[in-house]
């Protein structure tokens, strides 16, 4: 008797057969044969499953994955993804329809059920200003375990094994970073926490610091033990007053309990943490600029190498990680690297916190396993686009990232897949845009931000971003040309190649990615002199539709610049030369006779 590792059950009931399930059966046989899986996969035609409405139905065992409304064209993907790679095709999986009506607890909603909270495990559960509550949920247990039962090498090995990668945006393997810093020989080393979260719309790190500050302190102490440092600094922006306050309280409590300070748990290991406030410069999130700022100099980046692991703060070997990265560490130590590595995908382990914002129903903070699709995050957790509008793009990675379109919605969220598409994981901002957003305007917004935040040390970033912004300004004013688009691309690529630090190296990304995915919108601006989304003021006209206007004169009375004239009970007209495009008339018209286009 043959042993199959997997069975594919295809419904042969009347309902499913009438929607071509037999063709699906044939296709499965074909694909399985093509991939030489005949001895491993059994294909079975079954009777009716009883869910004809969802037919054609295919069930794959041993997982019991329930695929509904399968098409012949889906079979190839199910075989390639599920049967060969072991990854169920989530877009076809049947999910129970969302509950309707009253929900007593947030934990029962789809919003929560789809999430997996590791970094945010204590946020919204414990009192961040009460160290006892942190201890009650296994807080400082990881530090105790590390100090009393593990060598520094074992700690680093555990972090490496977990597959944890930097959550601040770069995605560098955390364990390797720890190892490099541990191997540097010096009389003094430092552990830094980068809490200079600056992406517009991102608030993951702030939430961790506000909701669970002790997890970061504990992880920093663990890192200090692993690399041989006795001093840590948290660089946090002064614009986060609540986070700073809670950190202060947490540090004070940890010192009182002897969880920071000298001779922790009587093991002879000493570690202390101090806070350094940043003044809110975006570039200070770049690690070398951050260290310059701590040292009391202007926050400007240095060329790398030397890397912080060799020569960082005060030229001593320095380990620098982001808040969310640290927040994962105690959980990894307590529950084991294997547990952590079992979450997520092959190259991106664990979970990622995202700040969901923009045109999305459930704005908020979510933590999802890596590899989940953008569609699941936006539609199933985020609740989709409000007001019946159509999805246009999702921006990830903030000013360093790019925009992804409808066709990318089924992409798994992983470091490498997002980078390959011209965006990036980034620190976790996720801004959703609908049909009312103009992509040229969005790109202009981000570039204006990076131009403003450029520190000016290197020419490509300081002058290049300014020149790019000037071109974009021309385009949104209707004065752009097709050559401008090529120039933007050329300049963008040069800035990326020639800039000193990550800020300049990624600043052109929002422009380049929108040029790639939304070139037609740019072309509409430069060729037709129109803004399809109706955002760019200079390219808009307010006009009164003659047939709809009843001549009530409301608009003319509303107009602040007397640009509307006419006779009562006759259609009114807008004088385009006088109109300042404020939109007051459009809001006021009771007959919807005024249009913006």
């Amino acid at each position, binding site marked *: 008797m043959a042993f199959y590792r997997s069975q594919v059950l295809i419904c042969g009931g009347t309902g499913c057969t009438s929607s071509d399930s037999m063709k699906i059966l044939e296709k499965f046989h074909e694909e399985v044969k093509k991939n030489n899986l005949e001895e491993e996969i059994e294909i079975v035609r079954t009777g009716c499953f009883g869910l004809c409405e969802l037919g054609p139905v295919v069930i794959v065992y041993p997982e019991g994955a329930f695929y509904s409304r399968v098409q012949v064209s889906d079979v190839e993907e199910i075989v390639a993804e599920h049967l060969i790679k072991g990854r169920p095709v989530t877009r076809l999986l049947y999910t129970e329809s969302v509950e309707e009506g009253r929900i007593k607890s947030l934990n029962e909603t789809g919003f929560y059920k789809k999430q997996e909270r590791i970094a945010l495990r204590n946020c919204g559960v414990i009192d961040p200003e009460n160290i006892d509550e942190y201890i009650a949920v296994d807080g400082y247990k990881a530090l105790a375990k590390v100090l009393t039962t593990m060598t520094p090498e074992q700690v680093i090995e555990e972090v490496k094994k977990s597959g944890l990668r930097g959550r601040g945006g770069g995605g560098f393997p955390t364990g390797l970073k720890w190892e490099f810093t541990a191997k540097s020989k010096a009389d003094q080393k430092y552990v830094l926490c980068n809490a200079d979260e600056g992406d517009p719309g991102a608030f993951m790190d*702030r939430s961790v610091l506000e909701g669970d500050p002790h997890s970061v302190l504990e992880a920093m102490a663990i890192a200090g033990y692993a690399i041989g440092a006795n001093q840590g600094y948290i660089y946090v922006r002064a614009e986060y007053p609540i986070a700073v306050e809670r950190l202060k309280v947490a540090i004070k409590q940890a010192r009182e309990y002897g969880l920071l300070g000298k001779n922790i748990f009587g093991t002879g290991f000493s570690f202390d943490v101090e806070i350094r406030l940043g003044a809110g410069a975006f570039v200070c999130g770049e690690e070398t600029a951050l260290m310059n700022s701590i040292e009391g100099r202007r926050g400007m980046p240095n060329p790398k190498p030397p890397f912080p692991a060799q020569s960082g703060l005060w030229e001593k070997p320095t380990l620098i990680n982001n808040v969310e990265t640290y927040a994962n560490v105690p959980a990894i130590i307590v529950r084991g690297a294997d547990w952590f590595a079992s979450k997520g995908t092959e190259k991106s382990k664990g979970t990622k916190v995202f700040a969901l914002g923009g045109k999305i129903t459930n704005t908020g903070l979510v933590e999802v396993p890596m590899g989940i699709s953008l569609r699941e995050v936006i539609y199933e957790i985020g609740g989709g686009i409000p007001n019946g509008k159509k999805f246009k793009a999702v921006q990830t990675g903030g000013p360093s990232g790019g925009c992804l379109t409808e066709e990318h919605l089924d992409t798994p969220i992983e470091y490498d897949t997002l980078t390959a598409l011209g965006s990036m994981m980034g620190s976790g901002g996720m801004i959703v845009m609908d049909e009312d957003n103009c992509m040229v305007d969005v790109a202009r917004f981000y570039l204006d931000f990076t131009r403003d935040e450029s520190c000016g040390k290197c020419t490509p970033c300081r002058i290049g971003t300014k020149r790019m912004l000037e071109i974009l300004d021309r385009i949104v004013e209707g004065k752009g040309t097709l050559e401008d688009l090529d120039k933007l691309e050329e300049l963008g690529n040069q800035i990326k190649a020639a800039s000193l630090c990550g800020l300049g190296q990624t600043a052109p990304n929002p422009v380049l990615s929108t040029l790639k995915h939304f070139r037609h919108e740019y072309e509409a601006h430069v060729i037709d002199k129109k803004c399809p989304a109706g955002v760019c003021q200079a390219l808009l006209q307010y006009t009164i539709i003659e047939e709809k206007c009843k001549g009530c004169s409301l608009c003319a009375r509303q107009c602040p610049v007397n640009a509307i004239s006419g006779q009562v009970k006759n259609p009114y007209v807008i004088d385009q030369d006088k109109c300042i495009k404020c939109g007051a008339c459009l809001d006021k018209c009771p007959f919807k006779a005024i249009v913006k286009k």
Partner: protein
Amino acid sequence: MKSIQELEEIRKRTLDRVNQRTDRTTTRIVVGMATCGIAAGARPVLLAIMEEVEKLGLSDVTVAQTGCIGLCKMEPIVEVIRPGEKKVTYVKMDADKARRIVNEHVVGGKVVDEYTLHIVQGKMLNDYKVEKE
């Protein structure tokens, strides 16, 4: 902290306060007090709850602030866990609503349904108005 035993003692002593399961022995009320919650008006909510709990002399009730619960658009959020019962999430709170929760739910044991979340057409809302399609 000189030993792991000390840590374990604190853990045991405090566990019931933060226990999220139904086997807890006291009632816990948490108010989301991250930046999002505070901006939406969580401070007066927390104060009202603390006042009310004190006024009623409730001794086996813990009132605590907490970090971001995640659903920022529904802030201020208050969650109540009573012994033997599942956690209840109240959204879009204000001081008056919060006092009512202390009286009716924490003391009276009756969930104030109208302040809980609900789902209409797959969207989480705090009232029955369906966003216009």
